[in-house]
Every structure is written in structure tokens, then in C-alpha cells.
């Protein structure tokens, strides 16, 4: 028996921190840390979902404590989802770190602000739009 407001607040804080981390960091690895926090927030939310009465956020039990008797969810959906989430996150970070490593080997940096080759304003971006649209209407 715990108060649900706590986990909710924790989710909010983790998500906010994750967003900040993703947006404010330059180092690719640190950006990934932010992403991990976002995923973690999602995981907490899933587990919180298991703790909710049947029907989730739409359940009448949320507002009326007398209907708090919760029929057991035989599939324990929230927790299973969290586990899967963690797995996916692990796969993701493995891949991401591989990319970061490759980037570092190619560019000798893991600073994301220094890698802009795919940007439209890059001097190496040669596909001029006029070549695509074929000029203007008369």
C-alpha cells in the first residue's frame, strides 16, 4: 500500500531529466545517458500501471476507493512490459554505443555538434533543390 502520487512524480522527474540530458549534452555518450533516463521513466510508469486497478487510468476505482478490489491481471502486463522495455533498452544502447564508437574512430570526436554532415546547410550537401524541382513555373 503506497501512495500513487509518489511514483507519478518520480516518472515526471525522470522524464524531465532525460529530456534535459538529451537536449543539453554535446557528448554522445552523455546524450545516451539522458535517453536511458527517459526509458527508465517509462519503465516506472509501466510498473505503476500494474499497480493500478483494472481498467488502468480509466478505472472507476481510481476515484472511488470502495471499488479498490483489483482483479488480478493474470498476464501482469505492466511488469512484463517493463522487462521487455529494459531488454529493448539494452539492445538500443548496445547499438548506439557501437555507432558512437564508429563515429569516434572516423572523426576522433564524440561531440555531436561537430558532426553535421547530413545537415542541409553542410557544404558537402550537393543536391541543390533546383536539380530536384527543375526550376520554377514561368
Amino acid at each position, binding site marked *: 500500500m503506497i501512495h500513487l502520487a509518489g511514483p507519478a512524480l518520480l516518472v515526471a522527474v525522470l522524464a524531465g531529466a532525460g529530456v534535459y540530458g538529451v537536449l543539453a549534452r*554535446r557528448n554522445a555518450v552523455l546524450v545516451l545517458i539522458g535517453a536511458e533516463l527517459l526509458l527508465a521513466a517509462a519503465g516506472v510508469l509501466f510498473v505503476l500501471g500494474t499497480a493500478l486497478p483494472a481498467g488502468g487510468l480509466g478505472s472507476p476505482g481510481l476515484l472511488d476507493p470502495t471499488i479498490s478490489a483489483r482483479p488480478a491481471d493474470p498476464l501482469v502486463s505492466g511488469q512484463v512490459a517493463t522487462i521487455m522495455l529494459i531488454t529493448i533498452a539494452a539492445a538500443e544502447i548496445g547499438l548506439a554505443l557501437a555507432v558512437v564508437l564508429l563515429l569516434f574512430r572516423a572523426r576522433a570526436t564524440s561531440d555531436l555538434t561537430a558532426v*553535421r554532415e*547530413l545537415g*542541409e546547410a553542410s557544404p558537402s550537401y550537393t543536391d541543390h533543390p533546383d536539380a530536384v524541382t527543375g526550376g*520554377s*513555373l514561368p
Partner: protein
Amino acid sequence: MTALAALLTIVLPATFAALGIAVSGRSPVWAREWGRTGALGCLVAALVEAHGVLTSGQQARIGLLGSADLGSVTVALDLRADQLSALVAVAVAVVALCVQVYSGGYLAPDQSVAPDQAGAPDQPGATDQPASAYAEAPTRYPAYAATVSLFTAAMMLVVHADDLLLLLIGWEVMGACSYLLVGHHSERASARAAAVKAFLVTRVGDLGVLIAVVVLLAGGGTTSISGLIAAADTLPDGTLTAATLLLLAGVAGKSAQFPLHTWLPDAMEGPTPVSALIHAATMVAAGVFLVARLLPLFAAADGALAVAAVIASITMLGAALAALAQDDLKRLLAWSTISQVAYMLAGVAVADSAGAADAAGAADAAAADLAAAGPGILHLLTHAAFKALLFLVAGCVTHLVGSTLFADMGGLRATHPALAGLLGLGLAALAGVPPLGGFWSKEAVLTAAERAAREGAGWPAWLVLGSGLLTALVTGMYAARAYALVALGPPRTAAMHAPDGEAATAHRLPASMIWPLWVLAVPTAVLGLVLLAPPDLLATTHVDPLTAFTGAILSLAGVGWALSAPRLGTADLALALPAGVRGFLRAGYRLDDVQHALVVRPYRALARLIGAGDRDVVDAYPRATVVATRWAGLGLRRLGNGMATSYVGWAVAGALVLGLAGVVLS
């Protein structure tokens, strides 16, 4: 029988027009015969119709094109046959037949270079084409003959229409045919310009008819002429006034009345038989016919007839003066047509009150309505005869001398006495010399005007009377002047020689060009006799002896003055005028220039402006869309700056906005 005949007067020429194009191919001979057959059939039909109408009374409601479901009303597109239509139809058919026959000789199929062409009044660019080029071209005769037939059919449609929509069809088809015929010698720039001008000026006038039809349809709920006449007194005043004034605009355009008359003198660019057709019986007469046909409407509308009278008065005198100064036979005749048509219009315009005085004696109201237009119609008939004669004679003269300029003519009496006699006959009828047809009809108009003036019709009638008397004098002058210049004096040997070098006296005219002249000479001389046993239409048409005497004296004075001019020291009466005045009159008061400055040039400038506006203003918006899209694209491209965190930032922002929207909206 009458109904069938009336129908045939329209259908026969139209059918033969189509046959002439479709069956004859490029063979001019076949085309000529198709055209003549059509005209002959038309004449027979018209005579049968006239006989039927005169013996068994009028007939209305002859179906032609079924009915038209206009939405809120269904109009029956009917024809009618009454004395008015029958008499005019006979005149039209006679003239058309003469013209078809005459054209066969005049525009002889084997003679590719038309006589008009050689010495046409040289305007700048008039001969921008070597004559040989036209000689190579296939003959245009089949199309010409078919167009004349179609022209006849259209006029017959106007004459017989009992529905304004039908009348409008004939009315405008005539305009199109005149365009085709005036532009017959289209290798000449002047002919092209004249054709376009003829069509456009009359079309502008026709807008009046078009809108008048719409107004009457909206106000009266029908376009049937008999229906409208029956309802003339119950129609709203505004509808009546608007419709009649608009119709007058169309009349002014078609009948070449001031200020829309400028096309007619230029239309002399057409072959001479065409001029005879247009001037004598068809196109210009259609305007007067329309007013006569709708006279009860005009009479019921305030001021419409007064306006018509003013227009007619201005036109008849002004055109007569302009005719006096012309140095070209055909243009003189053209101006005389304008003047004479104004007589008819004046006769119709003043006729109402005169006719009303006698209405009590007429059989019924409808007949009285028709009879009121009698003087004008009588003049229409006599004019048809003598003007056709004059033009055809002029064509012969042109054929002989190869020019239409007075400067190239002279001494016709010595070389071709019979032709000169016919010319004299026509000109005397034009001048109103008794006892020719023209005299009676003109005096009938003047009598009607005088009676109307005396019976309190007010100043328009007086204006018509004064203007008419003055015009009689001037008409006598220019008619006699024309005769003096063409028939009297020594032959111009240089010009009277035929192209092949034969002596002028030996140059023979084809028979097909001669006998239409004699046919037309008969009514020219004796049409006045119709007043001895007038049909109902002319029952109220009288000639007042005193007025007739005054008119005749004035005409003869003009004739005498002009004929005696050589003894006064100048062969040409016009030379007695100051040079400036002469030039001004010859140019038709320079109204062409005014028209050019006030209408044509502004129109061209406006068209250029709009043309540029279409490209640079209206189309600028789509093109601006292109530019704007490209700039927007360039701007949005800057968002794709290659920085991964920036992309994530936009994604987060989007998610936040969506989430917020969800919260707010729920």
C-alpha cells in the same frame, strides 16, 4: 397555303444556300444556278404569300422551330404572315432575285479579278497585294452565292418573325452575312477593315436588341411579338421605355442611323450587287421594319418615338449633305441610303398620331397599328426598287469604266443611252420627281409629318417636317449632280475603254446584268400607283396636295440647280462648296475619327493593359506562390541542420504541443 408559302420564303433560300455550298463544290456555275433557283423559289413563295394575305387576311402562329423552354417561361418560336411581312417579303425577294442574276454576270466566274478591284479608291495599303495573287486563288463565287441566299433567308426570317428571338436570329445572321459579303475582296486591306467595322458597329447596336429582349422577357414574360403588342398597355412604364430605347439602338446600328451609321459608307468595299442587296431591301431596311412591327410598343412608351424622330431628322439632312460632297458614285449612293432610311424611320416615327386619327376607320386595332406605319413602309418599298436599280446601274457603270470615282466617269448618255436613262430614272425617283414612286412615298412621309405636327404631336413632328423638306432640296441636288457627272459631259476616253482595248461603245454588258435593271425600273416608275387601290396596310397613307407640291418644288429646284451648274461655270456642284466644308462633308463629318479616338483607341489600350495584366498581375499570384514556396522550403531546410539533438528537440517540442493540446482539448 399562306403559312406554307411564308415558311418557304425562309426555308427555300436557306436550303439552297446549304446546297450551294455542299453540292456545287467549287463549281461556280452550279453555285450560280443554285442561288438563282433559290431566289426564284423565294419570290414565288413570297408572291403566293402576298396573294394569300391580301385575299384571305393575315395569319399568325406558324410554327417553325418548335418552342423553347427558357426555364420559367416557354416561348413559341412562331412566324406570322400579314400584309406588312408579305409586302416587304415580295420586295426582298425581287431584289434578291435581281441581285443573284446580276451577280452571275458581274462577278462572272471566269473573271477572277473583280472590276471593283482595279480602280478602287486607294487607301493606304489598299493594294498591298499584286493582282496576280488573287487570280491564282480559287473563285469565291460558290460561297458568295450561298451567302446571298442565306442573307435573303435571314431577312425573310426577320420579316416573318412573330417572336423577338427569331427576329434576333435573322437580324444577326444578316450582320454576319454582310460581314462575309463586304469582305468579299478580302485581299484589300480596306475591304477587311470595312467588313470588320460593319459587323462590329452593328453588333454594338444589336446589344440593344439583345438586352431589350431580355428586358421584355423579364417584364412581359414573353418574347412573342403579338403577345407583347397585345400587352403593350399593361407593361410597366420602365420596361417599355427601356426596351424601346434599347431597340432603337439596334435600329440605329442596323439601319445606319446617327450615330452608328459610320459602317455603311465603308461597306461600299463590297461588290456592288451586295451593296444593292444590303441597301435596298435587306439589312438597313430591317431596322425600320422592326420599328414598324413593334409600333404599338413604341407608341406606348414615353419619348421613344420622339427620340426616333430626332435621330431620323439629324440623319436625313446630315447624310444628304454628306452625299452632296462625295466624289465616288457608290459612296454617294451609300450616304443617300442613310438619308432615305432616315425618311422611312421618320415616317414611322411620326406616323402614330397620324394613323391614330384614322384608326376609327380601320377594321380592327391590329390593322390600325400596322396602317399607322404605312408611309414609312411605302417609302421602304419604293426605296427598295429605286436603290436596287441605282446600285445595279452603278455596277454596270463601274464595270464599264473600271472605277467608282466620278473623276473617271462622264458621257454615259453618249455611249450607253439606255443605261443613262435607267440611271436618270433611278436618280429622279431618289430625288422625288413626280410622278415616280419615290415622289409618292416621300410626300406621304412629309404629309404624315405635317399632319402629326398640326395635330399636336409637338416639336418632333415639326422637326421631321422641316428636316424632310430641306432634305428634299439637298436630295434633288446630289441626285442631279450624280447624273450630271456620270451621264453628261464628254466621255472620259481613257477610262471608258475596256481592258482589252476595244472601244468603249463596243464594250457590251452581259445580258444577266441588263434585264434585272428593267425589272427594277418598273416598280421604280409606277409603284406610286399602289395608292390608287391601297391594301389595308397603306389605307391611311395619304398624300396632301399642298405638301406634295411644296416637296416637289423643292426637289425640282435642287435638280435644276445641280443640272444648271455647268452653265454656272462648274461641272460639279460640290466644287462650289468651300474646300474645307467639302472635305469635312466628304469625310462624313469626320465621325470616323471621333469614333476612332473615343472608342477604338481606348479599347485597344484597355486590351493591351488587360493583356499585360493577365500576365503580370493575375498570373503573378501563382508565380508568387512558387517563389513563396521555395523560400519557405529554404527556410525550413535550415531546420535540418544536421545536429541530432536539434532534431530530438523538435520531436520533443512536437510531443509537448500534442500532449498539451490533448490536455487542453479534453
